C-alpha cells in the first residue's frame, strides 16, 4: 500500500500527522503480537528453560543442563521408539490418505456418478466424528473376545481362533493406521474436490478430442494441476503426523471399563506410543517429569523441522526438474 507523501518542510502539525499515521497501524496489530508473544514465544522459550531442569511441577526446578536430552536420546528407549512409531504411521498414512482422497475426489467428480454429494458427505463424516467415539468404535470392532471383526472372520470360516488385534504389537499398529486413514481420507478428498472443481473442463474436452483415455486425463491433467494441493497436504501431513495422539490414545484407553481399569499406555509393548503421547505421558502421566517432557518436545520439534524441510526441498527439486523437463 502506498504511503501518502507529506512535505518535508511541513509544519509541526504535519510531523505529528506523519507520526500518528505511522503509529496507528502498529497499534492495531499490537494485540496480535502481544498474544503471540504471550502464548507462543514465551511458552517456547520457557519450555526450553524447563527442558534444562529436573522439575515435577510441584517442587522447585533443579538445573541439570542437557541431562534430559541425554536421557531421551541415549537412556530411555521409548523416546526414539515413539519417534519410530510415528514415522511408521506416517509412512503408511500419508500415501494412503493422499492417494485415497485424490481417487475419491476424482470418482465423485465423475459426471456419470449419481448421488455424488451424498458420497462426499459420507466420506467426510468420519472426520467430524469425535476421537473418543472413534476409539470406542474401533476397540469394539477389534476386540479379542467379542469384536465384530473376529466374529465375522470366525463365521466366514477364515479363522479358527480369535485374533488379538489390539494386543499384538504389529496388528495394533495396523489398527491405528486404519483408524487414521478412515478418519482423514474424506478430509483430503474435500481439498482435492475443491482443486478439481477449479480445473477448466476445456482441458478435458480437448483431451477427449485428442482421444485421451480416462487414465491419461487423470495423470496428465488432474494430477499436475493439483500439484500445489498435493504439496501442501504432504507438508501438513508430516506436521500432523508428528502430532498424532488422540487416535491411539483413545484406542487403548479405559473408556469402556466398568471397574476403573487403567489405560494401557502406549498400547501393547508401547508399539503405538507416538511422540506426543510420549511427551504427554512423561509430563502428565505416571512419571511427572516436566523437564524430560519438555526435552522430548524439543526433540520432536527437531524431527518435525528436519522432515518438513526435507519434504519441502524434495518437492522444490522435483518441481524444478518438471519445469526443466518441460
Amino acid at each position, binding site marked *: 500500500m502506498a504511503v501518502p507523501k507529506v512535505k518535508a518542510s511541513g509544519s509541526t502539525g504535519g510531523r505529528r500527522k506523519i507520526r500518528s499515521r505511522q503509529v496507528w497501524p502498529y497499534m492495531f496489530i499490537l*494485540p496480535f503480537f502481544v498474544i503471540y508473544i504471550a502464548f507462543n514465544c514465551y511458552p517456547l522459550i520457557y519450555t526450553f528453560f524447563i527442558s534444562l531442569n529436573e522439575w515435577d*511441577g*510441584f517442587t522447585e526446578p533443579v538445573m541439570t543442563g542437557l541431562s534430559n536430552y541425554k536421557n531421551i536420546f541415549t537412556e530411555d528407549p*521409548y523416546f526414539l521408539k515413539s519417534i519410530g512409531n510415528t514415522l511408521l504411521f506416517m509412512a503408511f498414512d500419508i500415501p494412503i490418505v493422499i492417494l485415497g482422497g485424490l481417487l475419491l475426489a476424482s470418482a465423485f467428480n465423475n459426471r456419470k456418478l449419481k448421488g455424488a454429494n451424498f458420497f462426499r458427505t459420507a466420506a467426510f463424516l468420519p472426520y467430524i466424528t469425535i476421537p473418543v467415539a472413534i476409539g470406542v468404535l474401533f476397540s*469394539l470392532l477389534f476386540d479379542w*473376545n467379542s469384536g465384530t471383526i473376529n466374529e465375522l472372520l470366525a463365521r466366514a470360516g477364515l479363522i479358527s481362533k480369535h485374533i488379538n488385534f489390539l494386543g499384538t504389537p504389529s496388528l495394533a499398529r495396523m489398527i491405528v493406521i486404519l483408524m487414521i486413514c478412515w478418519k482423514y481420507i474424506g478430509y483430503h478428498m474435500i481439498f482435492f474436490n475443491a482443486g478439481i472443481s477449479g480445473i477448466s473442463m476445456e482441458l478435458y474436452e480437448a483431451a477427449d478430442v485428442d482421444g485421451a483415455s480416462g487414465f491419461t486425463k487423470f495423470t496428465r491433467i488432474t494430477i499436475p494441476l493439483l500439484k500445489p494441493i498435493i504439496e501442501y497436504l504432504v507438508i501438513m501431513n508430516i506436521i500432523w503426523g508428528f502430532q498424532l495422539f488422540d487416535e491411539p490414545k483413545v484406542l487403548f*484407553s479405559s473408556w469402556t471399563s466398568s471397574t476403573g481399569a487403567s489405560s494401557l499406555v*502406549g498400547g501393547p509393548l508401547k508399539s503405538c506410543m507416538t511422540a506426543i503421547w510420549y511427551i504427554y505421558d512423561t509430563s502428565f*502421566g505416571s*512419571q511427572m517429569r516436566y523437564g524430560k517432557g519438555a526435552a522430548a518436545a524439543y526433540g520432536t520439534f527437531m524431527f518435525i523441522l528436519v522432515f518438513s524441510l526435507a519434504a519441502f526441498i524434495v518437492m522444490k527439486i522435483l518441481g524444478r526438474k518438471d519445469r526443466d523437463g518441460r
Partner: protein
Amino acid sequence: MRYKNLKKLAATGTVITVICSALAGCGTSGGVSSEADKGSSEAVKTEAAGDLSEPKKETKGEGTETITMWGWNAGDIEKIFNAYKEETGADVSLDYVTVQQEESFQKLQTTISAGLDLPDIVPSEVNQRGTMLSLDIWEDLSAAPYNFDKSQIFEYEIPLCSNEKGELCALPWDVSTAGLAYKRDLAKEYLGTDDPDEISAMFQTWDEFLEKGKEIREESGGKVYMFASLTNVKQIMDGQNPQPIVQNDTLDMTSVKETLNWMIKFRDEGIVDNILESSTAYSASYADDLHIFYPCAGWTPNYVIQPNDPEGAGNWGLTVPPQGCFSWGGSAFMIPRDAKHKQAAYDFISWMNTEEGTRTQREVVNYNTSNVEAYKDPEFAALYDEWFGGQNIGELLFNKAMENIQVRPVSTHDATIMEVWSMVTEAVNSDSSIDFEAACTMFENEMYTLAPELKK
C-alpha cells in the same frame, strides 16, 4: 477537528479494550474475588488440567463459608453435603468442581505449577494416592489443630492414607475391603455348592484353587473359567501382599514375583480367560455363564455387578478368597495446606467418618464409610444386597475381612507401578511365550526406565 479527536479517542479505546480483554485470562486469582471472577478462574483451572469437558460447577446452599471441592460424583456428594448441613447445622456451602477420576492428579499438578488456587478438598483414588501424598502440600490431619482420632477409622486404612513420614494426610471415604464374588448357578454346577463358607473352606490355598480350576476346565470342555481376566488374579494376589514394591528408592521384586508366578501358572493351565479388564467383553462377562469368580469390594455390587448383570439378582455370592481378604480401590480426601477454608473442609470430611456421618451416608447414598463404631452394631454391619440374595455380605466385608487384612502402604511410585503392571499383565495375557523369567525381567526393566532414580 473535534471529530478527528473523537475518532482517535475511539480508536485508542478499542485498542486498549482488545489488549485488556486478551490479557484478562493471564492473571492468577488472588485476594477477594467476585463470583464472576471465580467463574473465570474455574475455566482457567479446567483448561490447565487438559480437561476438555466443561467444568460442572455447583454451589449448594447459602452458607457464609464456601468449601471448594473436586470430585467425580457430584450427585452423591450433593446429597451427603445436604445431610451434613441438616444434621450439624453447619453454615457452609459447597462449590463442587467435577474432575474426571483419571485426570485428578494431572489437574492437581497443573493447578500447582500454574500457581492457581487449590480447592479445600482434593479427592484421591488409591492408585494415585501415594504419589499425591508424597507432595509436601497437605495438612497432617492427625496433628493440631485437627487432631483426628485414628481409632475412629478401620486400622487397615491408616497406611493407605498416610504419607511416607507417617502423617495422616487423607481421611478415607469408603470401606475398601474385598472378597471373592461368584455366580451361584456356576458354583452349584461345578463346585457342588453355592454356600460361601463351604466354598471358602474348599479354597484355603491358591494351589487348591488352581487344581479345582483345572478340573472345571476339563469338565466343561474348556468353556468355563475361574476368572474372566488375568487382571483379576493380579488384583487379588497383589492386594493380598503387603510387601512394598519400592522401598527407599530400591525395587523389591519379592511380591511382584509371587504374583507373576501365579498369574503365569493360571494362564498356562488355562483357568483364566484372556479378556482385558478394560474391555466391553469384560463387562459383558458378568452376565454370561462362563466365568465363575470376580474380585468384589464394597462398591462392586452397586457399580459393577448390578449394571453388568441386570438379570442376575440373587445369583451372586461372596466368599473369602484363598489366603484372605484384600483391599481394592477406595477414595480418600485431602486438605491442601494453602486451602482457604481448611477448618470447614476438615469439619465436613471428618464428619463423614463419624458414626453419625457413616450411618447417614448409608441411608442417603448407600455408601459404606469407615467409622469403626458404626459397624460394631450388628444391625448396621449387616449388609444385604438383592444381587447377593439373602447373604449378609457385610459380615464378610466389615467383620471377617478386618480380622487379618494386610495392605501395602501407599508410596510415591504407585502410579508408575500401576502403569508397569498394566503393561506386563497385557503382555503376559497376549503372549503365552512370555514365561515367568521374561515377565519379571520386563517388569524390572520397565520400572528402571520409568523411574530412573531407583537404585540398582
